[in-house]
């Protein structure tokens, strides 16, 4: 599925700092503020029609990046350009119109539905909010989209409450809700991590099918690199708020360059009893996002670390066509 190459989303030096609350005494005694640097200078582009994945461990800033892109949180610095328009500072009516084009699927299908709203009403709600359809017309679109995501017969599922459905069915309903406005761009944040294993593949396959049918572009957020490999066109690996490696799926998996990417890949369980596993080489745990190490953020855990790694922060540079790595040793 080679995309026409046109960029649908451009993220430029995006930053999000969350201030850390201080106690009363600390406020009196110290002047300097502390921040959690959740997203720190992240840049990437997403091409129309592709599945672009942000992958990394918890706390690496992947979900925050997704929320910033959808303007569900406001960024500290940087630019977000969607479809050629700078949307970083959009507000009010303009932002609402933008949201028709970009939607989100959340991780937890239990928490993302109002327990007192029937599925049909919840799925049709975006139409009401955006003033696009009501009454019979709304119902018709709801039934159509429910059938499309595999909740058939639609009129039966429309009358159910969320607790009457299984996790997989609820996640299908969440997809129906995000598709009903006919968006161009969807951020899917760990859409299958809370779903039973035997149902995951069906949900992933449905996502790919819908992408083809509706001409969608996905920003897929996951910690599971095996799923990332199955679904993505391009992948960005994040560590402590920055992208450390970005490239085509094949480049990332067959010739990873950054030591962190290599460690992540080596840690993935492989369903094969014959395989001899190598023990992981990483030292210690992920440092706190408040006290980020100087220089390369990864140097405290890196086996190949040299003297300069703690001093100079590496930029993302091209090591091969379309393969970017942030490591001075690359």
């Amino acid at each position, binding site marked *: 599925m080679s995309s026409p190459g046109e960029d649908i989303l451009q993220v430029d030096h995006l930053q999000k700092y969350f201030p850390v609350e201080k106690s009363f005494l600390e406020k009196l005694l110290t002047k300097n503020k502390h921040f959690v640097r959740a997203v720190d200078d992240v840049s990437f582009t997403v091409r129309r029609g592709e599945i672009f994945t942000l992958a990394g*461990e*918890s706390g690496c800033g992947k979900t925050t990046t997704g929320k910033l892109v959808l303007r569900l949180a406001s960024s500290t610095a940087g630019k977000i350009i969607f479809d050629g328009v700078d949307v970083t500072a959009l507000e009010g009516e303009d932002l609402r119109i933008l949201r028709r084009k970009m939607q989100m699927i959340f991780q937890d299908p239990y928490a993302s539905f109002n327990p007192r709203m029937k599925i049909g009403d919840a799925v049709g709600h975006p139409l009401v909010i955006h003033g696009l359809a009501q009454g019979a017309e709304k119902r018709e679109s709801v039934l159509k989209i429910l059938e499309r995501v595999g909740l058939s017969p639609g009129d039966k599922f429309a009358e159910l409450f969320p607790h009457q459905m*299984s996790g*997989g*069915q609820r996640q299908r309903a969440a997809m129906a809700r995000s598709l009903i406005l006919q968006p161009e761009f969807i951020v899917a944040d760990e859409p299958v991590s809370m779903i*039973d*294993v*035997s*149902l*995951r*593949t*069906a949900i*992933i*396959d449905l996502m790919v099918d819908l992408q083809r049918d509706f001409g969608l572009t996905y920003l897929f957020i996951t*910690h*599971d*690199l*095996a*799923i990332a*490999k*199955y679904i993505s066109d391009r992948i960005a690996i994040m560590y402590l708020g920055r992208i450390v490696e970005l490239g085509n799926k*094949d480049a990332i*998996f*067959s010739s990873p360059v950054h030591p962190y990417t290599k*460690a*992540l*890949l*080596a*840690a*993935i*369980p*492989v*369903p*094969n*009893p*014959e*395989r001899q*596993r190598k*023990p*992981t080489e*990483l030292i210690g*745990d*992920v440092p706190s996002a408040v006290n980020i190490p100087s220089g390369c953020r990864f140097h405290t855990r890196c086996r190949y670390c040299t003297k300069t790694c703690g001093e100079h922060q590496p930029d993302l540079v091209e090591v091969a066509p379309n393969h970017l790595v942030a490591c001075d040793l690359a």
Partner: protein
Amino acid sequence: MLAVDGLTVEYWTLKGRIRAVDDVSFVLGKSETLGMVGESGSGKSTLGLSLIGLVPFPGKIVKGNVTLGGKEVLKLKEDELRNLRGTGVCYVFQDPMTSLNPVKKIGDHFVEMIRTHQPTVTKKEALERAEKLLKDVGIQPERISNYPHQLSGGMRQRVMIALAIALNPSIVVADEPTTALDVIVQAKILDLLNALRDSYGMALILITHDLSIVLERSNKILVLYAGQVVEYANSRSLYENPQHPYTKGLLKSIPNIELSDQKLDAIAGSPPDLLDLPRGCRFWPRCYAAFDRCRNEEPMIVKTDEGHFVRCFLYTEGGSKS
């Protein structure tokens, strides 16, 4: 070392009796790892808990035997069971945050655990042992004076493991020990469990929903579906020659990063409600090979190969091989 025979556990709820574990049998030897794999509701946690008589209310063990080192576990009195829980079978729970007491220091957890079972040990001796155990699981001994919230998720799970092996149990049951953890931490914890198994000569029961983990880490695998064992074999045999359609389906639906251009196949439908089980085989509504007999009769578990058992009419006499 451990033998489980025909174990059946029911929850007696207002809505009816739920048979969470149905006629499960297996054996486990020294220094072996048994992987129990199943989806939510397959009964894998209930099965793990019932091995040490810890089935939560309103659960009841209605049938079966658990024999550990020659003793019948299910016939023991409460105080004998309590002793067994420290020294015979120890449990590592999924969520290390809720299993550690937030107002107690790490060291005090060890003191309580050790002195409950061995009252003659002094507090000082218990703390010394705690330091050594923490070192064994890769945590600095100074951490005994920390509270649980001062440790990361991976470190807390290491503490749970250190607590579990404190009294040298013969079996450690790890129930989804890495589900809440990131992939690198997960690999380290599983490496640690393997290393401890070998150095302490324990047996390990690994309960998880992740078939990749059990294939990689265990000698034998028990595949559970809706409370029943559908397949039981050693890992290599299960991987090379999976027999039950559910196992085959699972193997085809998990991504493997070592394969390129892998095509995954989904299993149709979803797991049944235990209160409203289908007639006949519990898997037939999702099975690609189901025929008439599957819809009417319940299959028994049969031996198909040395150490390979499967619950499916395709492998029973009179069934149709497809």
